[in-house]
């Protein structure tokens, strides 16, 4: 399994494809909230449903996300 090197915002991850979170930025308390929910740097994430909000799957847990301007999550898509 190799990874593409270009990070992209999580919203651009195609449906049913996987990626690794490489960076999270934005309002500190919002980022903290995300981390408490298990959305952290280094986590593998799969896109279940794209759009606004999107539905992602992290470690078997589905989380719906619409962060607006408060935070950004960047992922590197996994290429098999």
């Amino acid at each position, binding site marked *: 399994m190799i990874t593409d090197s270009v990070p992209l915002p999580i919203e651009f991850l195609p449906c049913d494809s996987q990626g690794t979170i490489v960076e999270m930025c934005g309002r500190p308390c919002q980022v*903290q909230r995300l981390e*408490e929910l298990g959305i*952290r740097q280094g986590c593998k994430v799969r896109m*279940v449903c794209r759009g606004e909000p999107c539905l992602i799957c992290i470690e*078997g847990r*589905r*989380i719906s996300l619409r962060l607006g301007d*408060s935070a950004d999550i960047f992922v590197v898509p996994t290429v098999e």
Partner: protein
Amino acid sequence: MPTATVSETSTRTVALIGNPNTGKSSLFNALCGLNARVGNYPGVTVEQKVGRLTGSKLSIDVIDLPGTYSLAARSADEAVAVNVLSGELAHQAAPEIAIVILDASNIERNFYLFSQVYELGLPVIAVLNMWDRVEAEGLTVEAEVIAKRLGVPVVCTSANKRKGIDELRRTIEQTLQSPRTKPASAQLARAQFPEAFHQEAQKLSEWLHSNGRKTSLYKVDRLLIDSDGHFQKSLCQSGLHEINTQIEQARERLRVAGCKVPMFETKARYGWIRQLIDGAVTRKETRSASSSDRIDQWLTHRWVGMLIFALIMFVVFQSIWWVAKWPMDGIQWIQGLASGGIEAFLPPGALRSLLVDGVIAGVGGVVLFVPQIAILFFFIAVLEDCGYMARAAFVMDKLMTSVGLSGKSFLPLMSSFACAVPGIMATRTIESRKDRMVTLLIAPLMSCSARIPVYVLMVSAFVPAIKYAGGWISLQGIVLMGMQSIGAIVAIPVAWLLKRFLFPGEPATFLMELHSYKWPSMVVIYQRVWERVVSFVARAGSLIFCTTILIWAACYFPGDHRLLDESVATLEQLQRTQAIAPVSLEQTQIEENQIREKQIEEKLGEVNRLRSELIETSFLGMAGHRIEPIVRPLGWDWKIGVAVIASFPAREVIIATLGTIYSLGTGEDEKSQSLQDQMQQARRPDGRPVFSLATAMSIMVFFALCAQCSATLMTIRRETNSWRWPIFSFVYMTTLAYIGAWLTYQFFESWS
């Protein structure tokens, strides 16, 4: 090392805490059975659930704390959890053990909360629940290794299958009976916080101490980490305004020292968790979509998801219509039996009138609708427990953002369809204050279960029973669904206006976990339905009972009923004689029977005349005629006007009031009929029917939009801590209701 000093016979307390959707409710039920006491924490509106541990020699109370991901104390729920666990809540001692429930299939994230609870200094038991999913998801978890590293008992359970519960019970008893120890500070995740932070925490703790505020170390940490956190606000409110400057300065020093607040906390805690579970938890790499994912692709689809939601709601409301019919007939039959029994034993008079016309026709009329309410709550509980409601919130987020709210507002609004009180209380999960206020103000517009009796009565009496699709879909069911949705439809522009003018701002972010689909637990559903039915019946027995007695008295007095009672007694005597009179072909007997029949007819006319005269001249009749000009534009007569006004404390009262007014006011020959029939036959002085389709629709629209619920208004008062918002809700909803009812009446009048 402090030791437990509580005697064996006194009641001990343990608390249950965990992330949402970790099976906490199932575990609580498994430990305590179905005898939980539900109340509020003193001074705050966070729900407190306490049960007694079953199957134990000791007397142990189990407190079920609200589900939370962290003890960061950003919301009231989280602050209560910290206060309960640290024993800082008034009139409540700290629990002796904190039982932390963790989803065994998602250990890493769940240990985050554990790491915080562990720092509070209480003895802790870690429960790895949903153990059955560990294997199913291709995980291996070595619980013994984790227990050894942590130095606390770790119990594996599958609460939904009642597995591991006995072991947990034994562990609780053993922990209570063994000497209490505190974890070494090096064992805590806090030990991994930067050195600069430890120094600042120490300084702040000393400063608080010197200002007479002895504060636990955990709270000091929270003061430094959570910007604008709950504890900072409460210290400020208690008069210690200087705390803000102290915290700001400390944070600035931390920033200079390179300590990123609040990010260092999650980093340190996850680092601690990684060391704890290193080698003890392994996860198989899974790439394929699970069955939940496949279902989600449809249920969360932009358009298909919305369509499915509308379809589910349609089926729910059609079922309420169909299924409730039989139990309702049964209740009506029992009521008939009770009235007949009382009439046979008691002579005509005030007491008999109070029991038959007040209690049975009034309160009984409300109890009649228990089946519908039970069915609605059943559906809502099923949809919630199987995981669908969270998906509906996801689908609705797009729609909600168009009025400036987020999907988070959807769940409180949906639960307001059952009852606005828990709905308003559920708005506490919305972090954005503006969104919370808008949601809270539009929640009473959602059609709650107390409106169902009004709709069902009006729809069954005045909407034609036309059926479509081979009898599967009925027009009455469609109108019922329309009425259920009207409040939600009106709420859209209301929310938009509120958000635009009173609470302007961007929609809050939407961040919510959707738990995997599961078969709904029958125990949980039974509990929810039972709780709601009991509270509905209790309301009928208290508030509605009292209102009914008042209405009955206002209908009965000041008229002189002697003449009427005499006439009724004579009439009943004649009817009894007629019933046992021999059927004979003899001329004299036939004549005698005919004379008696004529006498009965005359007496009946007299009784009916006396009844309507007495009600017209009663206190209620006089008041009703006064208000008639206000309600006439809506197509109502004085009886409806009075019934509507009487139902402002609780909307179900209208059924009781109409029941009493019609039972007292209608003729003796119609008394055995249902309220529905009596309303259909009611005539105005000019001979036109009182109720037409237009009148019925106007009443229903009024009820759909009006704030007729004192409990809801009191809840708004409590949640907003101000009288301004309940008054605002009352005024805007009543105005909307009057205009809506007027427009509806005009539309249906011109149409018919």
